[in-house]
């Protein structure tokens, strides 16, 4: 019974986490610029361009190739 209770509590904690949602009116922090995946799009684009040009022979940042095995 003790084990059952223990697992029950763990299960409850786990499902409690999944039940938490951010309401539409509580997204002020998530809407902040520094919370975005690319907070500075211009810098990200420049870095991606530099990376692509340096690593072009290996396909750059993406997985490109025609399936011939030669990149």
């Amino acid at each position, binding site marked *: 019974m003790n084990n059952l209770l223990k697992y029950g509590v763990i299960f409850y904690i786990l*499902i*409690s986490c999944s*039940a938490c949602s951010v309401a539409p009116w509580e997204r002020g922090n998530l809407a902040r610029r520094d919370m975005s995946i690319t907070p500075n799009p211009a810098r990200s684009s420049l870095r991606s361009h530099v990376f692509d040009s340096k690593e072009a022979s290996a396909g750059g940042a993406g997985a490109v190739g025609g399936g011939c095995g030669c990149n």
Partner: protein
Amino acid sequence: MRYIVIVVFLMVSYTPVKAIEINEQAVSCPATVGVEKIPLNLQQYKGKVVYLDFWATWCPPCKKSMPFLNTLRNELQGQGFEIIAINVDEKSGEASDFLKKYPVDYLTAMDPKGVCPQLYDVMAMPSAYFIGRKGKIRYIHLGFKERDEAEIRQRVLELLAEQ
């Protein structure tokens, strides 16, 4: 026994929310107006068509809707139309600063604790509740795009035509 425990925990975890629906009476909520924090009283607008708008400064479409709403309100105010905006920023100061920079003529109430959007079960930002002359919610409009302007105007005019 194990299944009973699981079912009980699932039932405990479920928190039902009573969402406000169309044709239900608009409820009052603890938003406040101005630095004096005067409680918002929706009852005093009975007999008018009210556009209850939930907005925040971090919400670009909310800000985009404001010039249109201000124009609409000023145009139709004489026919008994009013806009009440409820700001849901956690820091109401941000909204006050924004409104100083970009003032609107309609009433803006503050609800930093987010009780009003919870009562109205706001599903998106911005959300607008069209309240008819009898104090009932008649339409709910989610979001705002420029192409929504004609529809919003039409809905308001329809409600204004009702007695």
